[in-house]
């Protein structure tokens, strides 16, 4: 384990040190340094503090653990690997990710999981322990987004316009989501045992990592949202 002090250096130099390190790293004193772990294929990075935007962009297999909050665009266009955030995340977490896992203990901002995709053996997963902002899973084309809503502040589990433009993948919300309005091109229904089976392992892993009682989390109805069509705009055009 190599210890890197974020305060002693700037963004680019810090990331260069991470790339140059042949071993796992621990970054201490992190206050908003951007692009940490961009494109990294292997090794584990532990971060003490709050990393800046685009944490783990294009991540390609490495594991990142954050002991604190994260900012915008966590795991942008991530291909493989794991990002675990022991706090809240900003906007556009998991933008266009096609593989790997992002676990966020607290809340996520706007547009979490936007344009997530899946392909062949790759299928990304985001688990959000708290609630998230508007446009959750916008344009979602694949993968699984789970929002657990474990806050006790009485606020709605997702903001406005969840799943707008969704044309693949699944969103699983803990609870009956009765107060959530979905667009007309998706279907929301109470998740069956089969629906939950595929998600349970991730929920258990999430709970184990953050020390949450898994029975409490799982002993609850879930709502599954799926798109009606992989081609939502098929009949919109006429050739001229």
């Amino acid at each position, binding site marked *: 384990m190599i210890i890197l002090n974020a305060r002693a250096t700037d963004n680019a130099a810090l990331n260069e040190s991470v790339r140059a390190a042949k071993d796992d790293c621990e970054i201490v004193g992190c206050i908003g340094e951007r*692009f940490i772990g961009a494109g990294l294929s292997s090794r584990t990075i532990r971060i003490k503090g709050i990393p800046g935007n685009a944490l783990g962009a294009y991540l390609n297999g490495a594991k990142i653990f954050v002991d604190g909050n994260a900012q915008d665009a966590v795991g942008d266009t991530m*291909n493989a690997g794991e990002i675990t955030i022991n706090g809240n995340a900003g906007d556009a977490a998991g*933008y266009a990710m096609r593989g790997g896992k992002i676990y966020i203990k607290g809340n996520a901002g706007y547009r979490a999981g936007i344009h997530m995709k899946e392909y062949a053996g790759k299928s990304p997963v985001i688990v959000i322990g708290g609630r998230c902002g508007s446009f959750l899973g916008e344009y979602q084309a*694949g993968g699984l987004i789970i929002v657990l809503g474990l806050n006790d502040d009485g606020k709605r589990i997702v903001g406005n316009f969840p799943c707008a433009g969704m044309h693949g993948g699944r969103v699983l919300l803990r609870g009956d989501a009765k107060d959530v309005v979905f667009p007309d091109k998706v279907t929301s229904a109470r998740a069956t045992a089969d629906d939950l089976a595929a998600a349970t392992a991730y929920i258990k892993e999430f709970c184990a990592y953050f020390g949450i009682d898994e029975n409490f989390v799982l002993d609850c109805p879930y709502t599954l949202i799926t798109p009606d069509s*992989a081609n939502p*705009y098929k009949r*919109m055009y006429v050739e001229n």
Partner: protein
Amino acid sequence: MQTDYIYPRFEVERKESRCSNCGLCINECSCGVHYRSKDGKYLLSDDSKCVNCQRCVATCPTHALKIVKSNCDFRENSNWTSDSIREIIKQASSGGVLLSSMGNPQPFPVYWDKLLINASQVTNPPIDPLREPMETRVFLGRKPSEIRRNQHGQLICDLPPRLTLELPVMFSAMSYGSISYNAHAALAAAAAELGTYYNTGEGGLHENFYRFGNNTVVQVASGRFGVHKDYLEAGAAIEIKMGQGAKPGIGGHLPGSKIVGDVSRTRMIPEGSDAISPAPHHDIYSIEDLRQLVFSLKEATEYKKPVIVKIAAVHNVAAIASGIARSGADIIAIDGFRGGTGAAPTRIRDNVGIPVELALAAVDTRLRDEGIRNNVSLVVGGSIRNSTDVIKAIALGADACYIATAALIAMGCHMCRNCQSGKCNWGIATQNPQLVKRLDPEEGCRRLVNLMTAWKHEIMEIMGGMGINSVESLRGNRLMLRGIGLSSKELDVLGVMHAGE
């Protein structure tokens, strides 16, 4: 309904005296125009399906076929043109958004055709490029503002990453999916042979073309299709697509019917699923956000590759470019409203954006005024049709040009402008394996190399005539241009004098 019937736009004329009744035309037409009579004796045609791609005309062994514009038209006038009437009928019967291909066809001014090039007489004599050195090589990327030396007085040569072009033309972005595998193969091989670059577009890079990486610009668009570490590292430069001249302000939508086989694998999305590129990048709401994407790409590729930001030419293009030049981008690509596309809503294609000539002049002037012109190189596209368009663009301030439509025509496109159908009879804008086979990549490459070699000769000749012996000396040299028949406002924006001045 009878009101929806529109007489075909094109008619097939078959010269019976020449026709050998071989039926090749039936096989050649993917639109299904040609067919045999029930008794098998005669060849007939369903004109309503004809798009005038000229495939049957070109392949008929006895040259018995001719496509003519129908003279059965609406009672049009200057306001209610035939097209405007036809479009209303189509929308009234379908309720659909009109979808077209290729660049803006409307009769807006083409400023290239209103600019004239200078030549030397008596003083500053012309140069003969056949016998004297003439430099067409250009470097794209950030230019250092000062010469740096180490303590021993030696030059420090760690220049920012750049692209090296043997001629000031690159092949512009066309995605695998919108065009065929063989078209990409031809473009990649031609770029390598010419010492220039082709651009993957936003559909990823097929594994077979990684070997052309040194001549490849890889594109990152809002949909992030096929974008991963190896892809970013494969190219010589990375282009962030913010906009496209043919459809500024809107995203892309490759229908699921075109996401088949290798296209699906290269885009990394399932077969049959729509490939939707959102209109914005959802992590970019400001120049600061753009800077973040620029640097996340640079971080992921260890600052070894220049980053291009491509925008559509729109009203505020100069201010936008000024922001981009401060975002850390190395190259700005500006796409004018005549730039091609595989599919765009007709109304947007025909009404949104501005001519690239005006955009280029405005951007170059603005960056010079602000003293940041050397922060970036400028590449312009959007219907560069010939070598003089290239010369005029460089004299207006461009470092290089992007061509795509011209490259397609070189490969066999006959500009029927029906790309959105996926039935391209020339094997370019299609994923049908039977049609793709019609484009021989080697032949396509040879024709692209021919075209570019010819343009290069012409560029050298015209530069020689001006008494200029390198593209670098022509760049931004607007004194080499004069306007003809332009208003003083147009001349003002273009920054050129009128002919005779």
